[in-house]
């Protein structure tokens, strides 16, 4: 019992550190990729290939002058970025990061919390995610920040619907809300993306909107709203907002990989004949590769597509994605019924 608790604590802290480090280096990779897409080199001065750039950026943010608008709501102003960061880090608990590890004959699952409603947990966290942005935007007492916050909330509410509807098909197919169970059913190459391409596409688009990434980065649209909800933020508070975006990218990549790309499964999984722990490590690396792939897609899209206009965004969400998602649910239901 006590070893289980220690193991869970270790795993949780490992995942926390992992998401922070990945988010840190995503900032570098984002700038590198942006550079390559634009025929530039990207940052390459701080350390070899710019590897120390995230540290330099972090240090800069820490030592920058902290500024708080005189008319800001002091408590909420600080609560906003903290909440955003907190919520961004919560989701990783429900994701199965790999198959079980066996140490001294005791089985340790590579998942912090195997709740039987894993998907709903992810959605609950997602729906709270908007609070950090809204609170921060409102507390700054700035019209641009408020507009950014309002945009963020309406955008996130709109896309949450289509996202949940696209996930319902997965739940219908697997008959379970547990992430672990869903991954287990995608064993080998039975990936959900092959059965639910439309659902995957809808989920991908919604994931872009939920993480406030381009082309749906209207809450921080700098051409219209200066900096959006973080206009009045500086120093590490701003850093938290920017950082949370990259953590969200990482986690949403993990969720997509888990739900659609078979999680840690890969074709030929049974033929390798590895010992359980090596196998767990290999599987974890496979999952990590899939997440990295999604991270690259995020950046690729960001540096390719121009930003949507606000009415286009709402139109896409309500008039295209939601009907498509409902259609997908109906089709899946009919197919499941016919196969029974």
């Amino acid at each position: 019992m006590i070893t289980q608790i220690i193991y869970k604590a270790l795993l949780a802290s490992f995942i926390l550190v992992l998401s922070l480090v990945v988010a840190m280096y995503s900032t570098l990779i984002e700038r590198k990729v942006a550079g390559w897409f634009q025929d530039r080199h990207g940052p390459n001065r701080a350390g070899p290939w710019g590897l120390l750039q995230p540290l330099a950026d972090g240090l800069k943010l820490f030592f920058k002058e902290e500024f708080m608008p005189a008319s800001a709501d002091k408590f909420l102003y600080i609560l906003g970025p903290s909440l955003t960061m907190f919520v961004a880090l919560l989701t990783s608990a429900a994701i199965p990061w790999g198959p079980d590890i066996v140490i001294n004959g005791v089985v340790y699952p590579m998942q912090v919390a195997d709740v039987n409603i894993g998907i709903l947990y992810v959605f609950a966290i997602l729906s709270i995610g908007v609070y950090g942005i809204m609170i921060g935007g409102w507390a700054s007492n700035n019209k641009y920040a408020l507009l950014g916050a309002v945009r963020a909330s309406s955008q996130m509410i709109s896309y949450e619907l289509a996202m949940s509807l696209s996930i319902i098909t997965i739940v219908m197919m697997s008959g379970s809300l547990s992430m672990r169970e869903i991954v287990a059913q995608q064993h080998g190459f039975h990936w959900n993306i092959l059965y639910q391409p439309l659902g995957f596409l809808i989920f991908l688009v919604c994931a872009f909107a939920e993480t406030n990434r381009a082309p749906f980065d209207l809450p921080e649209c700098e051409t219209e709203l200066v900096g959006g909800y973080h206009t009045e933020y500086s120093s590490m508070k701003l850093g938290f907002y920017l950082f949370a975006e990259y953590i969200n990218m990482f986690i949403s990549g993990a969720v997509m990989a888990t739900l659609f790309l078979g999680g840690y499964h890969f074709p030929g999984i049974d033929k390798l004949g590895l010992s359980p722990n090596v196998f767990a490590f290999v599987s974890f690396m496979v999952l990590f590769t899939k997440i990295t792939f999604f991270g690259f897609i995020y950046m690729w899209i960001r540096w390719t597509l121009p930003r949507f206009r606000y009415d286009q965004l709402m139109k896409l969400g309500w008039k295209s994605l939601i009907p498509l998602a409902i259609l997908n649910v109906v089709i899946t239901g009919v197919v499941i019924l016919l196969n029974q």
Partner: protein
Amino acid sequence: MKNLTNRSKIVSNKKMSFRERIYFPAILGGMRITFGHLFRRKTTVQYPEVTREFSDIYRGKHVLKRDDEGRERCTACGLCAVACPAEAITMVSAERKPGEEHLYREEKYAIVYEINMLRCIFCGDCEEACPKEAIFLTPEIVKSEYQRDRFIYGKDVLVEPADPAKRVDVSKRQTAKVLEFKKDKRYKHNK
């Protein structure tokens, strides 16, 4: 209206076809283009390690030349100041004292010669106007400064070192053709 290139597209507000309305073909096309750029040669010049190649006759910082015996060529005639469209050049002339023949070639010389690098537009008219082959522009660039007054370059900066080894080479810009041009009396400033 005649098109200048054949790449221009007529913009219209026509109703989009279904293929255009579902966005995805266009998005994939855009992503293909950006992906191609990943492997292109990078255009950045890594500045401190690599410098961009300058033309031989790049018009940068000025130099006041000395002649072969190390005497200043400038005679403070003021033609450069007159030719200067930005009025960046000022000078004060002085008479050469006996015993200073090894310093100044002509009997009159510039005791003060200043170019305001903030005004200078690096057109090279001063170089063209100079009858004594005294002022030239060099491929050296003017360094940035923190104070504006540092940009007023005096003789201490402009005159080339007397040491023959450290002379500024202007042979690339003082070609036979240029010398021929400077003798052409059809041009006003060569008279």
